[in-house]
Structures are given as structure tokens and as C-alpha cells.
């Protein structure tokens, strides 16, 4: 076999391309972004000035930014619960009961294959045309709402479409974890007189704890950056009722008064929030995993 030193060198060669890509396309722009957040650059001018923390100070008075933060938090909490519960439920169902599990796995995973922008536009059609048809012709009066035009319902619409798009991916992770639970353990529990709920609660659930860590980490960090679904579905509207932080940043940078410096300051704040939250979540859940 290889010597330790040689092994390290081989590892380095494998990691190097990814490391270069990461440094060049992730870390460098991120640092650059932070640098620009201290300037008044408008994105097209050749010149700009360092203005220190002025952008960050201004953000504190930016009502719309904090409203978008509030909206995003609400979205994160709801989507985290809804998509993970649904994904786990589907995973358990498909794993245990269904014969055509391949078919269902494909069906639920399918939304991941298309871009959420396209998915979003598909749903715009469903919400604005198909649902009214059903409401009018099948007498389903409760469907007769302005799904994407009324701020009360557009949040629901966004949750529906987002979970439609993410559940399949999470479900696959949960299914993989479920398959890793040794059958003997379950059988032993059954022999000891446990019913299926008890088996799930006390055997399966702890065994798939690591899947929760991954799934919640992934949905937490991606939910904070939600953009495409909302962009396609409501454009952040009506007015600004469904504007997420990412959308707010996008509008700051590219629409209206093009202000790159200010927009990068906002994204720096978003980065810090996501970073701290995911870090806390990972720490907390990792500890739980180790207790097993």
C-alpha cells in the first residue's frame, strides 16, 4: 500500500481542482462582495468611494429590508416543517408499503429535474387558469381565491410550490437513511412486543438522525436564499407582500436605483444570518447524533 506521505499527496491532487474552483469562484467573489459593501459603487461607474459602514447604517432604517427579513423567516420556518415532515412521511410510506416504489420515487423526485423558474411559471398557469376552471366547473368554491394576487393566499401558494419542488430531494435522503436501518433491530423490537409506531419512534427515528441533520441543514440554508419560486410566482408582489431577502437584494442591485454597494451590504448581512443559524443547527444536531 501507499505510504502516509504519498497518500496525502494523492489526496491533494484529487482535492486541488475543487479547491481552486472554490477559491476562485466562491471565496474570492465573497471577499470582493464584502469589500464592495463598504463602497458607494453603483455597478456601472468606473469610480467609487469607500464609505465605511455607511451602507450598513442605512440598512438599519430600511423598512422594506426588515420586512423582507421577516417574511423570509416566516417562510423558512414553515417550509422547513412542511417539506421535512412531508418528505419523511413519503419516504416511510414508499419504503414500507408500496409495491411500485420506483415509480413513486421518480414521480416525487421529478420536480427537481426542472428549474424552479419554469416550475414556477407552470404553477402560475395552474393557479390562474386551472384552479378557476375546477372551482367553476366542479363546484369547488373554496378554491375560488386569488391565489397569487392576494397576500393572504400568495404565501400559501409559495409554500405549496416550494415544497412541491424540494420534497422529492429530501425524500431521497430520508429513504437512503431508512434503508440503512438494520432489519434485525426492527424485528427484535417487534418480538419484544412493540407496535409499528413504537418501532418507528424508538428504533428507526434515532437511527436516521443523521439524515435530519443533513436535510434540515440543506433546507435551512436554501430556504433563506429563496428567490426563483417567488420570482416566477408573484415577483415579490402584490406590492412587496411576498418579497424575500434575496429578491430585495436583487431589486436593489438591478432594479430602481442600481446600487451595488448597498446591495452587497445587504447580502453580507444575509450571509452572516445564514452562517450563524446553520452553524448553530449543525452543532446542536451533531451533538444529538453522538449521544446515540
Amino acid at each position, binding site marked *: 500500500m501507499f505510504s502516509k506521505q504519498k497518500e496525502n*499527496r494523492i489526496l491533494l*491532487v484529487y482535492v486541488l481542482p475543487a479547491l481552486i474552483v472554490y477559491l476562485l469562484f466562491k471565496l474570492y467573489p465573497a471577499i470582493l462582495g464584502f469589500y464592495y459593501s463598504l463602497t458607494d459603487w*453603483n*455597478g*456601472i*461607474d*468606473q469610480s467609487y468611494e469607500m464609505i465605511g459602514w455607511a451602507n450598513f447604517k442605512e440598512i438599519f432604517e430600511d423598512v422594506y429590508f426588515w420586512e423582507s427579513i421577516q417574511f423570509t423567516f416566516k417562510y423558512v420556518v414553515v417550509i422547513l416543517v412542511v417539506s421535512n415532515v412531508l418528505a419523511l412521511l413519503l419516504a416511510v410510506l414508499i419504503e414500507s408499503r408500496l409495491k411500485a416504489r420506483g415509480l413513486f420515487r421518480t414521480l416525487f423526485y421529478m420536480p427537481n429535474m426542472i428549474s424552479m423558474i419554469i416550475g414556477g411559471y407552470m404553477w*402560475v398557469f395552474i*393557479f*390562474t387558469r386551472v384552479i*378557476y376552471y375546477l372551482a367553476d366547473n366542479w363546484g369547488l368554491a373554496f378554491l375560488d381565491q*386569488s*391565489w*397569487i*394576487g*392576494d*397576500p393572504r393566499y400568495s404565501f400559501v401558494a409559495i409554500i405549496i410550490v416550494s415544497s412541491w419542488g424540494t420534497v422529492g430531494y429530501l425524500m431521497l435522503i430520508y429513504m437512503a437513511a431508512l434503508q440503512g436501518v438494520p432489519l434485525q433491530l426492527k424485528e427484535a423490537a417487534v418480538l419484544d412486543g412493540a407496535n409499528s409506531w413504537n418501532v418507528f419512534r424508538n428504533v428507526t427515528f434515532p437511527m436516521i438522525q443523521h439524515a435530519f441533520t443533513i436535510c434540515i441543514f440543506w433546507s435551512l440554508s436554501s430556504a433563506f436564499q429563496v428567490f426563483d419560486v417567488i420570482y416566477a410566482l408573484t*415577483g415579490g*408582489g*402584490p*406590492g*412587496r*407582500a411576498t418579497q424575500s431577502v434575496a429578491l430585495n437584494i436583487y*431589486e436593489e*442591485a*438591478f*432594479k*430602481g*436605483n*442600481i446600487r*451595488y454597494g448597498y446591495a452587497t451590504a445587504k447580502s453580507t448581512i444575509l450571509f452572516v444570518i445564514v452562517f450563524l443559524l446553520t452553524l448553530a443547527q449543525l452543532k446542536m444536531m451533531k451533538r444529538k447524533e453522538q449521544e446515540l
Partner: protein
Amino acid sequence: MKKLISSILVIVMVMVGCSNKESSSSFDPEEIELNIMMSFPQYMDQWETYIDQFEKKMLDEENLNVKVNLEMPSSDQYESVLQARLSGNDAPDLFTLHSNNISTYNKAGHLTDLTNEPFTEKLFENVKKTITHDGKIFVVPIESQAWGVLYNKKIFNELNLTAPETLNELEKITETLKENGYTPFLLAYQEQWVPQLMTALTLGGKVSGEVPDWVERMYAGEGSYEEMRDIFGPIDLIMKNGTDRAMELGSELGAADFANGKAAMFVQGTWASGTIMQTNPDMELGVFPLPINNNKANTLVNLSTSTTLAVHPDSKVKDVALKFANYVLDDKDSSTLFESTRFNPIAAIHDYETDPWVTDAYQYVEEGRSYQDLVLPQAVTEEQGKLLQEYYIGSITKDEFIKRMDEVFAESVK
């Protein structure tokens, strides 16, 4: 490890060798590359044809082997792509921009002064006015519109209605339409720029008719939207007598619904005519100016230039770029281009027959009943659209609208 390094070296050397060979072996006459970026992919075919003609003309007349690279990002993404290119020192030689942004881009040093180019002589005076900044011309206008409220002439004729001159007349028309079972206005407010058209028209009419120094004073921080409270006269009338589910209808679907006779009037520009005529080729489309109140002097059509073409000052092939800029208004070829894209004529050299709705609108222009589109900060325009959406669904009041707009205006001219 040594093997790895040596193989990388070999690859690098081969690549270097290849590229050297390529440049040294080209004996053809030098090819001039011209990069053009435009914001309307819907006219891709027309512009590609036009560019082919340009390449041929250059080869025939000037013995230049020009190769044009045409990029057309989607209208949604265009601004961000352009900004990225400009800030990355990778500016296209020619690019389109909205005429409202001329001063921003000029200040940032991205526009070439075209005042003395031959094409400027050809422009209609009123079009020329819309793109002149500080007495200079920095862009070639491409799209110019005279617009107001679109209406269905068939329905109007059937009920013996004529285009209104005052708000009272518009109210009467609305009543008559309702009595006869027609929905007066088509509302498609899903995209914020569509409701925003109502502020463009009402502010434009009111300012040009009654308060000509309002915009100036707003920029100086001495005006208020309070003076413009009248604009809610027509806005309320339209919102109260429109089709329902407005917040779910995009502009395209709205235009299709309008073409299918779902409502008699539609606050949209003549640029929607493409979709409308495609949906219903028999549509009799008319245009009238939106009345603001009962002062006829405010009832004017909006005359504006939207898309324009600029030459970047750092272009390495500037003389060819300037040739293309002038070619856009070529005496011989440009009529066909403008006709095929259904753009309005902007110069005396354009001698094709215009569509009836264009003739309609230009009648007002000829009578002197038009105004130049107000140049408001981009953020103000966007905010108006958003607030109108909120006003429509009832989450803000008139007073909040006025207060918020004053704030945004002050912020954007800070």
C-alpha cells in the same frame, strides 16, 4: 507526481502551440469584430437580417470584412447582463438602453457623443427632442411610441361612443358600457410595470397641462405628489370598473383577453398591438389620451422613445461602430427594418404605411396634443408600480401613496 507535472506541461505547451499556429497562419484580410448587445430577442430575426445587410454593405462599399456578434439576452435579464459587462471592462461596442437611463450611463462614462453624426439630421424633431440631453445626442433612437389608452373601436362604434376629452366624458362612457353589458376596462396588474402605465399617463398629462415645473421642483426637493392628487380621478375610475383577478393577469394574457373583447378599454401602450393583432386579426384598435380631470389641456398622448442604441466610447472598432449606428437610419434599408418590427417611423426617410392605431395616436401628436414622457428616477417609476398594486388590493390609501412617493423621490435624488 513528476509524471503529473510533466503531463500538465505537455498539455500547456500543446495549447500554446495551437494558439500560436492559429494566429500566424491566417492570411485572410483582417476581420473586424463588432459586438452588439440588444434587449429585444423578439426581433431577433429582423435584426439578424439587417446585420447581414450591414456586413455585406461594408464589404461591398468599404472593403471591410466585418463580423457582427449579436447578443440578445432576455429583456428581464438584459440590464443586469449589461451592467456586469460594463463594470467588468468588457463593454459591447454597441448596446441598447432605455432613453430614461441616458443621463445615468452618460455620467458613468459609457456613452459616445453622437451629436455630429449624419443620422441626427434625419430624425423627426419631436423624436430628437426625446433623446436630447444637455443639447447633445448620445444615442440612436430605435423604438418610439405615441400612446395612451387602447380601445376597441367595434364596441365604441356599436354604442355610438367617441374618444373622451374630459374625465366626465370618460365616466359617461364607462356607464354606457356597463349598461350595455360590457366591462369597461381590462386590468392586468400582475407585473408592476403595467399598473405603472397609469401613473406615467396621468402624471404626464397633468404635469404637461397644468404644472409644467413639477418634475424640476421634485428633483430640487421642493415639490410633492400632493399636487398630483388629481391622478387618482382616472385611476379610481379604471380600478373600480375593470375586469376582476387583475393581480393574476400578466401583460401578455391581458392583451389577449382584450383582443378577445373581454373589456372595451385597456391602459397599455401601442407596443401591445403585436399580441393583440395576433390573437384577433380582426380587432379594430384605437388609441385616445387618458383624461386626468375636466381640463382638456391635460388630455394628451404620451410621446416617448424607449429603446435606443449607444456606442461605447472604449470600443476598439469605434469607426465601424459609428457606421453601424448610422446604418440604423440608412436611407435605403431602414424603412424595411422599421416596418418589419412594427416600430413607428422616427425619421423622414421612413415611408411605409403605419398601422391604423399608430395613425390614431399620431393625429394627437400632429395637433400638438402630446407631451414628452416624464423622466423620473428609475426607482420612482418602479415604486409607483408597486404602490399601485398595493393600492389596488387595498393595503394602502391615497395618502400613504403620496407620502411614500415623496420619500422615494427624495431618496433617489439624494
